[in-house]
């Protein structure tokens, strides 16, 4: 018998595919974001509002993951951008192979923005790199302020926390400041934007964040291409 030290990630194959996806997306200058939240926090509606507010000339595409149904894809298709549903058939997360398989030759040429809506789950999607530039975690005010403490993995890895459904604050005992403190206790660098997809509050700030990140990615790609 012989013991061989491996010291590799269990998900090394997923990570290899994700690295290839990231390289391909970086070469085109497309910003890829991976949206993660618990079910019902408003991911799909936030993406609907995002597509509605994007300039029509933006070359954007959406991959949306669910265990079953193409309901989300049908909602998101109404905004004129390419949308593809990934039904995981039971898996509680998207993985890089699912993203690779579903991207194929479907992406528009000169893609600028790829929005990936993960399966509603704050645990499992955290472990799987999809080749994204950033993970965005969505927390809604109908959940608890202590979600960042209960699910530290995603709040540690996310660059941005969107605190959603703030129009409901008068009706729920949610303390936004405590949620912000908890998120920053886990990840001091996390950015936070508060939004309501019903009133439109905060959506301008969200779109400016998105535009700035997309511009930064495109500029980096141009600089790399001219070297």
């Amino acid at each position, binding site marked *: 018998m*012989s013991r061989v030290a491996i010291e590799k990630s269990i998900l090394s*194959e*997923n990570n290899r595919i994700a690295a290839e996806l990231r390289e391909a997306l970086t070469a085109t200058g497309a910003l890829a974001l991976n949206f993660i939240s618990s079910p019902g926090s408003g991911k799909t509606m936030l993406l609907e509002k995002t597509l509605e507010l994007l300039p029509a000339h933006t070359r954007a595409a959406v991959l949306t993951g669910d265990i079953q149904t193409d309901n989300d894809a049908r909602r998101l298709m109404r905004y004129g951008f390419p949308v593809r549903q990934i039904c995981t058939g039971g898996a509680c*997360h998207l993985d890089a192979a699912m993203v690779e398989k579903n991207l194929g030759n479907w992406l528009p040429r000169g893609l600028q923005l790829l929005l990936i809506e993960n399966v509603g789950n704050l645990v499992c999607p955290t472990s799987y790199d999809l080749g994204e530039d950033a993970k965005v975690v969505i927390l809604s005010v109908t959940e608890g302020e202590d979600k960042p403490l209960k699910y*530290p*993995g995603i709040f540690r890895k996310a660059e941005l926390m969107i605190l959603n459904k703030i129009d409901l604050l008068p009706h729920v005992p949610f303390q936004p400041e405590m949620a912000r403190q908890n998120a920053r206790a886990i990840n001091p660098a996390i950015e936070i934007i508060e939004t309501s997809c019903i009133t439109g509050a905060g959506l301008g700030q969200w779109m400016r964040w998105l535009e700035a990140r997309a511009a930064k990615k495109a500029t980096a790609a141009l600089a790399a291409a001219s070297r």
Partner: protein
Amino acid sequence: MHEMGIANSVLEAVRREMGEGERASRVGLRIGEFAALDPDSLRFCFEAAVKSSGLAPLALDIEWCRAGQGRRGDELQLAYVEFDEVRGI
């Protein structure tokens, strides 16, 4: 469900490490406290998955890691694989 996905990823990773004619007998994992995995559930799922994998019998060791002292606590690592025969001989 998450533990079953990870158990299948472990088996795929072991298969990739096996050379032709080699047979793995034991696999060691290093799992961090923030990896969102329950060791007992992972062990249960691994035992179920290994039966139909063609890799049975394959024993599983799990080293559970706390964060700190250079560890992030989100480790999901394949630490080692034991083979029945000495590799390369």
